[in-house]
């Protein structure tokens, strides 16, 4: 048991130490809880999150206002948006084929890439920078 959870933290450690990786988080879908998050969510502009559900990592907000929010808050806000995004995308997939299922989401922006592995029980998200 101890071994397994240390395994988990090792995995996260290695992932977050990879070059370019900004943040990673694991969400438990059954209890709707944030299991673990690493890295900083400074890229996450929480003020735009309310109006735009798309996780636009780049600060494309018109006013360029960056509110001061703690990392935990923006992590939570980011996770919430990810949940919504995954939910809507799996909805889309189910419309295409009711027996199909969502396996992987990769969102590329000019600056970032978000890799999401959705699972019936958990969601694994890693955000990394796209090298030019």
């Amino acid at each position, binding site marked *: 048991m101890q071994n397994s959870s240390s395994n988990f933290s090792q995995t996260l450690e290695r992932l977050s130490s990879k070059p370019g990786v900004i943040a990673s988080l694991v969400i438990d*879908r059954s209890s709707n809880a944030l299991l673990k998050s690493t890295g900083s969510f400074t890229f996450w502009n*929480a003020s735009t999150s309310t109006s735009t559900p798309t996780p636009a990592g780049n600060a494309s907000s018109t006013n360029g*206002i960056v509110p001061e929010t703690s990392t935990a808050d923006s992590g939570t806000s980011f996770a919430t948006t990810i949940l919504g995004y995954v939910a809507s995308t799996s909805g889309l997939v189910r419309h295409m084929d009711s027996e199909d299922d969502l396996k992987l989401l990769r969102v590329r922006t000019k600056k970032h890439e978000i890799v999401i592995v959705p699972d019936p029980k958990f969601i694994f998200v890693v955000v990394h920078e796209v090298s030019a």
Partner: protein
Amino acid sequence: MQQRRDEILAKKAKLAELKRQRELRSTSATRQSIGGSSDLAAPTPSRGESRAEFDKYLESILDGGGKSRPTSTGPAGAGSPAGKGSRPNSVLSAGELSNENSEPSVSQPQPQTYSISTQTLSTVPLATVYECPPSPIKEVFSYSKGVQTTEEWGTQTSGPKAFEESDEDEGETPATSTPNKRLSRRERDREEELRENIRREIEEELKATRDLLTDGPVRPVAQTAAKFPARVLTTEELNAVTSSDDFMEFVERSSKVIERALDEEYDILADYALSGQNGIEDDDDEYGNTRGKGRRRVKEIAQFYDERWSKKRMISDINFSPKFSELVLAAYTKNPSAPHEPDGLVQVWNMHLHDRPEFVFHAQSDVLAAKFSPFHPNLIIGGCYSGQVLLWDTRAKSSPVQKTPLTGSGHTHPVYSVDIVGTQNANNIISCSTDGVVCGWTVDMLAQPQELLTLTTPPPAKTEDLSPTCMAFPQTDPTYFLIGSEEGTIFPCHRYDRAGAKAGVDQRVSYRGHAAPVMSIDFHPARGPVDLGDLVLSSSLDWSVKLWKVRAPAATSTTGITGESHSVTPILDFTREDVVYDAAWSPVKPGVFSLVDGAGNLEVWDITIDTEVPLAKVAPSGRKGGRSMMSKSLNKVAWEESEGKRVATGGIDGSLTVFEVGPDLGGKESARNEEWTSVKKLIARLESTSAIVQPLNVNGIHGTAL
């Protein structure tokens, strides 16, 4: 937040400035008009005032962005000035008065238009403007009378919101309905008040945003997501979840996927039209190796090392998966400084996953040989120092799914060589230990060997003992194989009795040439127009690689008549500058082979081009933190079989390095038929020379060969 407030204040200041200017204009106009016509005076002076009102209005909407916000700024601001301002104006026009006391009805615009219609033409444009947004203004006034409810306020916002961008122009439209005001001081006071209100509102908005953040703002998504952090899990709960099998499996699976995604080097969004950086990279070597250039280039493409598992271990075997060309396995010896970790280890690396192995398999003893089963992509066989033969399954956990017993039947000495021979439906694991025992096993049952053969050195030797160091089967015949021995001789062996020869070492032929233990034997993987399956490459600690032409087992029975040992010499000798640990034919190019030596170099040769010097020679880049000189030696080399473009090598320092060779040294598309015939011709020439000249003179042969 500070920044935002500053910005808004700056904006506000600008607005106020504009307002003041407009105010000045309008008051001057008012004075003029008061002197002139009272009819006109009513609408005109009200402009500035009402504009301010409306601006503030919009301001609150803009900044609040807010519907259901309970801020009182708007209504209060709208209410009080209206009440105050109306008094001095009430005399002026009936329209204003009716406005003041109006019931919330359509009647309000009517008297206005009516009165205007009786007036001069100049006011007509004003009348037309009133018609579009009459309701918001009216409602403001009715509220100013008494009740203020947030809902009504909210409904109004939808109207003005559309004007957001052009508030200055739109500000004129409701102008006439608001009562006018003349005193600029009061005006200023009100502006102060407005500013204060706006500030308060912004603060409230920020607070609301922050509240939303913590409470989970996203409404439009599914209910489950709506209140995301349902609660914070306690430590026990967190542990329970993170240590569940489900979760572990998920992490294992998903992190692999993510790492592959991150390691993916090819950018599918690459725009080659934009920059030339992505073009051909011709990086000049930085180590001063005589590394091949251009089409003979040998380029390092990946290096695999796991801090936990590869540390202080040596690579004892390497094999590419025949089914998945991106997978390559490496077998490791024990880590002497970690007695609690399993001694033996096999890691399966993925070319697309750089930082961690795809699979890790354990053994209780150093793994000395390992190989993917060519007949089943999930199975890996291995031979151990303990003499065990192991079978791992990539679908199972890291411990072997089957293993031979330590005692009793089977091997009791280290197994340095394992292979799977046969066909898809009938194949056997063949293992060979250093005491000369060769065992055949079925994949399904490793409890005891199906066949067991003890090899002995043929008669004219001092001792009967034979200690094989390596074993190789030809492509075509699973019953016949070569054994490289510690004394340097290579013996042909039969698995079964056959005409003229008993099972075991063929007594009539031996391949003598090496003066030190033979480290590897490799049959030519003949897969071309010309059959070169009888060419064998052997490497030895005597600093040489030798090329042999072995006799077919059927032919041996005719040559050996009396059972006298017939010695065969190599047809070509490649003398190197260090001990050679391994040599392997390219799977696609008939004349190409690679070798690794004790100095840590990987060399790629092509006997059709040069038999004296390698075409390319390269050393793996040093791992940072790796040990010095002594850790450079390379133990094994392996080609990727389907494409023949990649070579993997590894040795004492435990890191597995994969190279990609240029098109002249590998790759299917470039293999031409002439190469096969030229190898054939070369062999024929070498054979005739070596038949005449004995002992063999390599230099002489080289001269004639080219």
